[in-house]
């Protein structure tokens, strides 16, 4: 039985992680009618970060984030960094549970209590993590075509309702576009650092394209989806609605279809949500391992999952609470994506340079 996944499968898991998040959770409309443009700009702006990730994993192949930190800074720093990322992961997971549960409850199964959906997603995600990255990869390979089809059908269905005039950017919105681009740098819930958790299971090397293809595919899906919402609903209305995608779907008649086939469609967001939650849960369990120094996978999954579920219905209890946290999130998220990996790379490069100099000196002495 294989215990590793190929870079291609890792790509699929990444793509599903980003696409599910971006399509269902990407409802931050700070730039209103220009949200689609901000997504593309922020996706491009994130390129240096992926280059940073690429250089880091090239130097430390097959290691997760905490193992890399340990190699460079030692066990003490590893524990501190793991604590920070464990808290970050739990908050992210709780937000993810809340959004997926809210999406399903408010659009597909209106009367189903949110906690039922959230617990179901949490249980399935925990099962996937417990089974390991190979099962997660298989789940991804099974679900991705279905999610892609779901998104394509809804986009194609809206073609007759598109008003291209609504899409044109307005000059006075340039500040909003700049701010929106910064906000989307955190790519609502598309947190690439979390995907370091998959690396120990990847067979072979992750090349730059393996990072970029899923990222741009997801950015394109979200951008097209937002552009579609703006063209269908109009600039002002699409900017004012949370989950504007679902309103646009309802205009195009897709929701009617969805009602009839709710058995299938209610599972699709859930399936994507399961993958996203599983990846975050895997990251949390690795953080627990790194804190304790022992393989605490069961404890990590249980503790991380339960705390995230509790937070999901307390601090993100209401849509307005979630909205408030949307505004704070980029301030926390963006530095966490960049600062620690950058520090790791800088210190590793400096040490490598120092080691080379010492070796060169020694060699010189021996020759002389």
């Amino acid at each position, binding site marked *: 039985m294989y215990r590793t996944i190929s870079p291609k499968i890792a790509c699929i898991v990444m793509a599903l992680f980003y696409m599910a998040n971006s399509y269902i959770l990407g409802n931050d409309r700070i730039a209103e009618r220009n949200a689609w443009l901000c997504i593309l700009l922020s996706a491009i702006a994130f390129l240096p970060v992926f280059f940073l990730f690429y250089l880091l994993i090239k130097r430390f192949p097959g290691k997760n984030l905490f193992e890399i930190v340990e190699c460079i800074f030692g066990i003490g720093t590893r524990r501190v960094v793991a604590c920070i990322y464990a808290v970050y992961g739990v908050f992210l997971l709780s937000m993810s549970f809340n959004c997926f549960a809210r999406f399903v409850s408010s659009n597909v*199964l209106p009367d189903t209590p949110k906690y039922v959906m959230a617990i179901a997603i949490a249980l399935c995600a925990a099962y996937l993590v417990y089974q390991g990255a190979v099962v997660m990869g298989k789940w991804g390979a099974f679900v991705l075509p279905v999610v892609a089809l779901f998104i394509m059908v809804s986009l194609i269905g809206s073609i007759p309702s598109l008003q291209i005039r609504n899409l044109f950017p307005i000059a*006075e919105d340039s500040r909003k576009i700049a701010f929106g681009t910064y906000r989307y740098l955190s790519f609502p819930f598309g947190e690439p650092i979390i995907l370091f958790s998959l690396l120990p299971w990847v067979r072979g090397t992750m090349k730059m394209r393996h990072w970029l293809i899923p990222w741009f595919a997801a950015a394109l899906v979200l951008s097209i989806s937002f552009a579609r919402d703006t063209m269908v*609903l*109009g600039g002002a209305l699409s900017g004012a609605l949370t989950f504007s995608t679902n309103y646009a779907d309802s205009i195009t008649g897709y929701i009617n279809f969805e009602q009839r086939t709710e058995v299938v469609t209610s599972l699709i967001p859930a399936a994507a949500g399961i993958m996203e939650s599983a990846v975050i849960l895997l990251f949390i369990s690795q953080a627990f391992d790194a804190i304790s120094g022992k393989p605490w996978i069961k404890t990590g999954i249980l503790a991380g999952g339960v705390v995230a579920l509790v937070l999901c219905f307390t601090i993100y209890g209401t849509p307005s609470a979630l909205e408030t946290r949307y505004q704070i999130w980029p301030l926390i998220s963006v530095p966490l994506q960049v600062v620690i990996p950058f520090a790791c790379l800088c210190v590793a490069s400096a040490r490598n340079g120092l080691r080379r100099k010492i070796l060169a000196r020694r060699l010189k002495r021996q020759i002389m």
Partner: protein
Amino acid sequence: MKKIVFLLITFLFLCLLSGCWSYSELNERTIVAGAAIDRLESGEILLTAETIDFTGGESPGAESAILTGKGRSIAEAVYDITNQSGKELYWYHATLLILDNKYAKEGIQELLDFLVNQLEMRLTLTLAVSRLETAAEVLQLDAHGSNIKSFAITSIIQEQSRFGKTVHSNAYQVINRAMEPGVEFALAQIMSDVTEKNLSVDVAGCALFRGDRLVGWLDDKETIMMKLLLNSMEETEIEFLVDESHISVKTDAWKVQVHPEIEGDGATMRIAAEAMYEVLMLDGNQNMNDPDTVAQLDTALGAYVKECALDLIKRLQGLSCDALGWGNMIWQKDPAAYREFLSWTDVFQTIPVELTVTLQNRSSSSGMRVSLG
């Protein structure tokens, strides 16, 4: 252990597969086809819902049933109907919402909020304004003999809108226009017409809104002109007089280009309209094979369309209702200049318009005369 966990998850999903938490059967719901909103003298809102009754009677098929509820707000009126009928109102299939003109004059902001925030309300609802004493009366009129009048009236609005005689405005389009700067909206106008048997629905013209309030009406001819200037119509029939001869033409391939030009504190609208036409009917002695006659007709038709369009613009300016969305065009083109206008409504009232209309005969052979007797 793995099998047990797998089975547990499978059973958990089986629960979700049904998709029916707190489900209600069809017979526990009242399916709404359309509704009318009236403002009563007491200030309360009267909601009249046309519902679909499947209980049947002598005739097969669905029958229409009218339910009414009162309340200080639309939500209260909805609850009132639910209380009376003992069934939850199911709005997913509703297509039409008719507004009483008195209610529309007071403003429909509350209604637009309700439509956006109420999950079950459809943003695809067609909105219309009743020209009758009350909006509820519309649901009593004959609508092509259809059992479910709301569905039939929605179809009539769609059909009339295709010919340009009215506007077909969905709730989401109205809400978006109400939120955008420099643009107002219009809704279909519903009247009654006396037929041999009884009063029937007559949809023609539109109701104009400024902000969220009804400010005036346009007849069907004015509505056609408005839709032409909005570039939202490709073909229409026009009847006019040349040398006391009655001529009917079918125009198509309309291309209307509107260019706002901002000059200091004001702006000028430059409009160029082009179309092709063919003669459907003429009752004079014109020879349509004669190039001079065709040229004369081109000029006369162009002048007629220009006159009608300018009349409409004057009327809209008189009502301070920018239903043509010119303010929005200026905002899109130069937002800073738009913001500098103290009040777009005031600018719109006096905005100079330069309009050129060019109509070309598609084929003079279509002007063949039919000789009688």
